[in-house]
């Protein structure tokens, strides 16, 4: 029986199979409409996350399965002091697979160790959010036709951004990827990541302004730059416009560059960009459902 705790839990070959399945689901959803009849997904969300929970639930419903669960710790037995280990033992009696989000890092792994059903980490604090990374990879593969041989710009808060770190770790397993890190000096990608890239001989650049590098990019992964991350207000005001993607900046981009964003978007991508065919962040949310469908099927198969 397999679980998913970390995007690197699956080998590149296993991911290829998962993405093949996801793309087959996209091509012919009707074929999978009853794939999980009589199966139940438990969504155990100890903190609210509407988007991720609904994406999991939509995935299971699309497969003909059913969903049950809770959407914050207050409405679960955790409020009575029940441990994650006990909760998952009980959930194992009710459902066939579980997606768990928890504010404490490592909680889904504790669940996986005690569980009789596959557990998917749906986000544990600032630690891992593997299905977001799988979504990003599938979106790139489906829309670019390949995972590798491109220049990707990662823009915004690269210091604290969990999705960015996971994506970098996942992408370095593919070949010929050049990274361009676009961030204010305060929010640069951590040293351990650049050290690792140098060690592996993977090329990267660090720049401050999006305008300076957008023309080189095949992919642009946008994230939010939060005001509270800056040391002072002047720096924020001085730098924030560098990280807002608008129509003007898109003029310098390649005609086939893709813009991704893990969402929710606040103001880092101007709404005027939404109609640009290169803006694929809403399609990305759709791929999130496909990849979760493929993941549910794969993990249920591993448990049978």
């Amino acid at each position, binding site marked *: 029986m397999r679980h998913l705790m970390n995007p690197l839990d699956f080998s590149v070959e296993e991911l290829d199979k998962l993405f093949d399945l996801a793309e087959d689901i996209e091509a012919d959803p009707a074929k999978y409409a009853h794939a999980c009849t009589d199966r139940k997904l438990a969504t155990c969300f100890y903190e609210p996350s509407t988007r991720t929970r609904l994406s999991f639930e939509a995935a299971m419903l699309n497969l003909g399965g059913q969903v049950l669960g809770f959407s914050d710790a207050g409405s679960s037995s955790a409020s009575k002091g029940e*441990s*994650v*280990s006990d909760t998952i033992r009980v959930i194992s009696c009710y459902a066939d697979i579980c997606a768990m989000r*928890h*504010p*404490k*890092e*490592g*909680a889904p*792994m*504790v669940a996986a160790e005690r569980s009789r059903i596959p557990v998917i980490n749906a986000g*544990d*604090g*600032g*630690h891992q959010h593997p299905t977001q990374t799988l979504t990003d990879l599938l979106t790139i593969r489906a829309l670019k036709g390949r995972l590798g041989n491109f220049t990707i710009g990662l823009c915004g808060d690269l210091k604290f951004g969990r999705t960015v770190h996971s994506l970098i770790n996942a992408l370095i397993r593919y070949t010929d990827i050049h990274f361009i890190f676009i961030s204010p000096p305060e929010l640069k990608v951590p040293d351990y990541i650049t050290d690792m890239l140098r060690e592996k001989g993977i090329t990267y650049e660090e720049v401050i302004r999006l305008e300076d590098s957008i023309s080189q990019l095949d992919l642009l992964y946008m994230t939010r730059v939060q005001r509270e991350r800056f040391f002072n207000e002047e720096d924020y005001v001085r730098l924030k416009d560098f990280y807002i993607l608008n129509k003007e900046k898109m003029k310098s981009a390649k005609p086939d560059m893709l813009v991704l964003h893990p969402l929710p978007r606040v103001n880092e991508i101007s709404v005027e960009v939404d109609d640009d065919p290169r803006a694929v962040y809403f399609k990305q949310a759709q791929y999130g459902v496909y990849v979760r469908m493929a993941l549910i099927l794969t993990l249920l198969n591993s448990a049978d």
Partner: protein
Amino acid sequence: MNMLNVGKIEEGFVLDHIKAGKSLSIYHHLQLDKLDCTVAIIKNARSNKMGKKDILKVECDINTLNLDVLAFIDHNITVNVIKDGKIVDKKELILPKEIRNVIKCRNPRCITSIEQELPHIFVLADEKKEIYRCKYCEEKAGKSASAW
């Protein structure tokens, strides 16, 4: 200068080349306080190699020693196994792949911070750099402020 004389042991082990001042920490990590055996703690002994060093002599069944814990703390320690009053073996310490309940995860966001019954497990993430990470949250282990 007079040498401090500590008697020979018949069966047990002598941990030599402990960094000066670290013997008490090792005493606790090995949970020697819980064993009913004779222990000699020698602090700041003269050493040609190290200048100063600590030594621990423990009279007990040689199987009670947790070499993994010792290797995690300092794999440069020399472990002399004593039987019938003689050194019968010098054990090499190899970094353990996993250590359990030796150090605590200090990450306040880790699940181990709220679920008391969970073991604190650290896994060897980078053998070259001797980096251990919490199995659950992947927080790096800090050896200095790590007493259980």
